[in-house]
């Protein structure tokens, strides 16, 4: 006997198929299909390049998808540039550790203004093209459900993730039990250096608009008039 008679019904197989599109790192959910780098380039140039640049280098507004990874990274599975504080920006290929993620995301969300308009083979192809731009697969590569697990073994940042932290609720996937930053609540005569290490430069004073117009007109304070110099 049901606890909630009359509520909900079984999903039909066609319904599950229509919506169950996720692809996991173990490739559960990945549909059969394939696409070549060459075909991917066509898709890319027609459907992606306007936002992400012809070589995934991005145009003036979007973050670059490709770049910053090396042959050595592909070997080690760690992106060396991520250890450098001075490396500017981090591309998608520098960060992504699982190739399934790329496939899944392009399939569900790209092109940004026409998501879910690509065929399965087009997703394979354009993924192959992105991987090729990052030199993860060769120019003549045909990506498919049969060989994608081999590609995974060449992802530059495949060993770059850790779950050794205490910020996943419940039992960790190999997580830590204790928070990493352990402060104490000193109350009196606490050690402080009190050195002012950063504040907004004067030229940015009005960069967020006039703050006088971003605060209520009554209350314990007003917004400061940032169209004028401090104390001016």
């Amino acid at each position, binding site marked *: 006997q049901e*606890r909630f008679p009359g*509520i*909900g*019904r*079984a*999903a039909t197989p066609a319904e599950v198929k229509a*919506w*169950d*599109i*996720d692809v996991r*790192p173990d490739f559960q959910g990945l549909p059969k299909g394939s696409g070549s780098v060459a075909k991917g380039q066509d898709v890319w140039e027609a459907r992606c390049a306007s936002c992400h640049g012809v070589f995934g280098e991005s145009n003036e*507004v979007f973050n670059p998808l490709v770049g910053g990874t090396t042959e050595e990274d592909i070997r080690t599975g760690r*992106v060396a540039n*991520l250890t450098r*504080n001075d490396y500017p920006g*981090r591309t998608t290929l520098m960060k992504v*550790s*699982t190739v399934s*993620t790329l496939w899944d*995301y392009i399939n*569900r*969300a790209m092109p*940004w203004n026409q*998501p879910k308009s690509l065929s399965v083979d087009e997703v394979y192809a354009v993924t192959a093209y992105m991987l090729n731009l990052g030199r993860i697969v060769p120019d003549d590569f045909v990506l498919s459900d049969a060989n994608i697990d081999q590609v995974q073994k060449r992802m530059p940042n495949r060993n*770059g*993730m*850790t779950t*050794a*932290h205490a*910020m*996943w609720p419940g*039992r960790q996937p190999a997580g830590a039990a204790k928070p*990493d*930053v352990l*402060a104490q*609540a*000193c*109350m*009196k005569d606490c050690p*402080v250096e*009190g*050195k*002012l*290490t950063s*504040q*907004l430069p004067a030229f*940015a004073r009005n960069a*967020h608009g006039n703050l006088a*117009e971003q605060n*209520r007109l009554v*209350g*314990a*304070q*007003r*917004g*400061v*008039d*940032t169209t004028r110099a401090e*104390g*001016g």
Partner: protein
Amino acid sequence: AAGLATATAGARAATAPADGDPNILELPEHSKGLGQAVVTDGYGKPSKYERNVQRRQSPGLTQTAQASVSFAPLQSLFGIVTPSGLHFERHHQGWWDIDPSKHRFMVNGLVKTPKVFTMDELMRLPAVSRFHFIECGANTGMEWGNVAVPTCQYTHGMLSCSEFTGVPLITVLQMVGADLKKGRFLLAEGADGSSMTRTIPMELIESGEVLLAYGQNGEMLRPENGYPLRLVVPGVQGVSWVKYLRRVEVGDQPWATKDETVHYVDLMPDGKHRQYTSIQECKSVVTTPSGGQVLLDKGFYNITGLAWSGRGKVRKVDVSVDGGRNWRQARLQDPVMSKCLTRFSLDWVWDGKPTIIQSRATDETGYVQPTQRQLRGVRGTRSIYHNNAIQSWLVTESGEVKNVHVS
């Protein structure tokens, strides 16, 4: 203090002429006339004098307006409830106003019978209403390096708090016969263009805390916040509170979705990214006085702000008005609720001298909000996400308050 004088002009009763304040002596129009009718608005709006209280974008922060964020004006809010019209926004592919009668919700994966529900059906199930904060994992992200933004709207405004109403997700998982032994993970998926996906730990769902929510502050969710259905995952960063929720899937491993592999991963000094960082650790911020404001005068102030923890209740908040050398315990406004904003306040008499104001929260697990130096000592400065360091506001001699970093 010339700027101060300007800012306070006409604001103080203290400056009334000998005979009295004309605002008292000459009766205002509203004391001498007939006002407006009821139901001028079937759905009312704030006073025209409140027009400065708006959510806002941070110029240059994002590259598009549909994969972007707007910040809640924390400096102007009271108590713990965020008015829904001022709730912060974070969209990855824009927001929609979805017809609820056509919206469907599906459960599949490691379940006996995959099922489909209408909104009508979900809203017939036993529901709960709970107050929770939601904070974007990237909130305060601009503060990892140097000071980049002036006010607490921009430093901490990817934070809101509402009374959410919905069905505990566990109820529905039980209805479909979910295999909770093997199925220790759940994928939540949105119906918008991004079809946002995030992995949710089954422990949280089993606790009954995770909700299939349709209500927010007494009415339905706002379109910008996921109308008509959103996952509520108390204590966990906002990206997991999937909006326009169309489907959940029970599985035996996490999904490593784009927003679990490319974004919402925290870069550590050793070049590794922490993956599946989800909990918003204990944090607080003073909202009055706060950056970009100018105090009207010396004298008494009620320092006030917000504290919260993704691990449970706030136990105490300490406030320093001398840059962290000495701290006093603030008053906490009850009810102090789990994974909910807590309003704190403390008396303060400003003597007109420059000083630095800070707050530091401790939660019921004993976790203490760290200083920037302590946080950076472990995590470096490139995490982007999960910056819960103590915020410092410098009050200058002119009464102007500034966002500063100290060390």
